[in-house]
């Protein structure tokens, strides 16, 4: 149904992480953007902020809903997607590409073991997660 790229890792709260060497790019999944509806606002942490796995690091708002963002991995924010301030709809249009939220310097690679792969995430959506 939705799109869940194979190379990414996923959380139960519908965020994805893409490891890029010692860094990880983070966003929300196709399922999450579809559930939210049209995104109109994103609140993201500043560069230098430390985020912790499965703790909230920001907020994404659609016309109708306010939703917390949970960090898939721990680390320090090194990049923030500034284009989302003017064009938050990129999160709906391209959740794995132009809609990326933050990039972190990875704190602990072992944390990847706590995340799901694409097939597992898809199975999760079919069962409990897709509500």
């Amino acid at each position, binding site marked *: 149904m939705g799109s869940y790229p194979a190379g990414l890792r996923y959380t139960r709260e519908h965020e994805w992480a893409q490891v890029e060497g010692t860094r990880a790019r983070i966003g929300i999944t196709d399922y999450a953007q579809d559930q939210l*509806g*049209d995104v*109109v*606002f994103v*609140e993201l942490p500043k560069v230098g902020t430390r985020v912790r796995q499965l703790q909230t690091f920001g*907020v994404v*708002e*659609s*016309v*109708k809903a*306010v939703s917390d963002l949970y960090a898939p991995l721990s680390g320090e924010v090194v990049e923030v997607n500034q284009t989302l*301030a003017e064009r938050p*709809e990129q999160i*709906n249009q391209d959740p794995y590409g132009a809609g990326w939220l933050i990039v972190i310097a990875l704190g602990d690679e072992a944390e990847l073991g706590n995340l799901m792969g694409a097939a597992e995430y898809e199975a999760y959506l079919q069962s409990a997660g897709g509500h």
Partner: protein
Amino acid sequence: MGQSDDATPLKRTPLHAAHVRRGARMTGFGGWDMPVQYTGIVEEHRAVRAAVGCFDVSHMGEFEFRGPDAAGALQRLTTNDVAALEVGQVQYSLLCQEDGGIVDDLTLYRLGDDRFMMTVNAANIDKDWAWVTAHLGGRTEARNVSAETGLIAVQGPRAEALVGRLADRDVTRMGYYRCERATMGEVPAIVSRTGYTGEDGFELYLPAADTERVWEALLAEGKADGVLPVGLGARDTLRLEMRYALYGHDIDQTTNPIEAGLGWVVKLAKGEFLGRAAIERVRAEGPRRRLVGFEMVDRAVARHGYRILRDDAEVGHVTSGSYGPSVDRYIGMGYVAAALGAVGTEIEVEVRGRAQRARVVKTPFHPPRVKK
């Protein structure tokens, strides 16, 4: 099927199956299972302002009143001047309590010298029916026809052309807030040039059993116009941009018409009506608070219930707020202490514990384009 809070099943309009067929995202609203969106709130909102959109508003309630004293009874029940309402005319009005609190906002149709129809909010049908029947008096016949009446709103610059092609008469000449009987395809309808979007458009009152036929005909016939079915999500952003009140958010039984900026539908000179004395007092003394429109200065979304602050003190609260797609700003409505109600006043909205700057602005946020 969706469930309402107390686990009674949600009510369905005659168009429920059609919405589900189209893959609409459904939600419970005022006890009804309604479409929030079909393709997306922003896309639907823009389609209404640029072309034409069709809304299922069949969940709303309709009451019919008949009899030689119907006009008099309605005059005593509502705030606007029924004596000034001509046959074939519609007026926006309010039902108020003795203390001036608003029971509901409504539109009142004069269908004949002694025949009226009142359209009320879906969530208030039972409350309003109990209210009007308790206050009517013996000589007026009243019927709650909500369950047998479907209602479709067709709104946007291309609404006139679309409704015109399906109606058996020339609707182009129908004036704003006027109504007529017409046939849509072969379906008898009451058509009014009214709406909740700020665009030109019509509301079509139809027999419930024929509503789906007309809905499908509008969406098929309007394809070339770019018609979209539009859900409650866009209905809310469209009305917000016009600063139209939403009952339960901006107005309720604790708000009076003067503070809500609805003094223009209160005609004190017309004579006695429920709530008159209390409303007159507020008008004379000035309201203690005012419903204003504001826009965010800092980048943040104001939402219903958020506190409004000034100089670290709470001075009000947000009643409605969101992103306005046609104005491309974060906007809202809320009550503030009357002294802070002037356009240009700087206020703050507390969003997730932090004060975000905002400013009281002139409304409507978007220019109305209703029929002149």
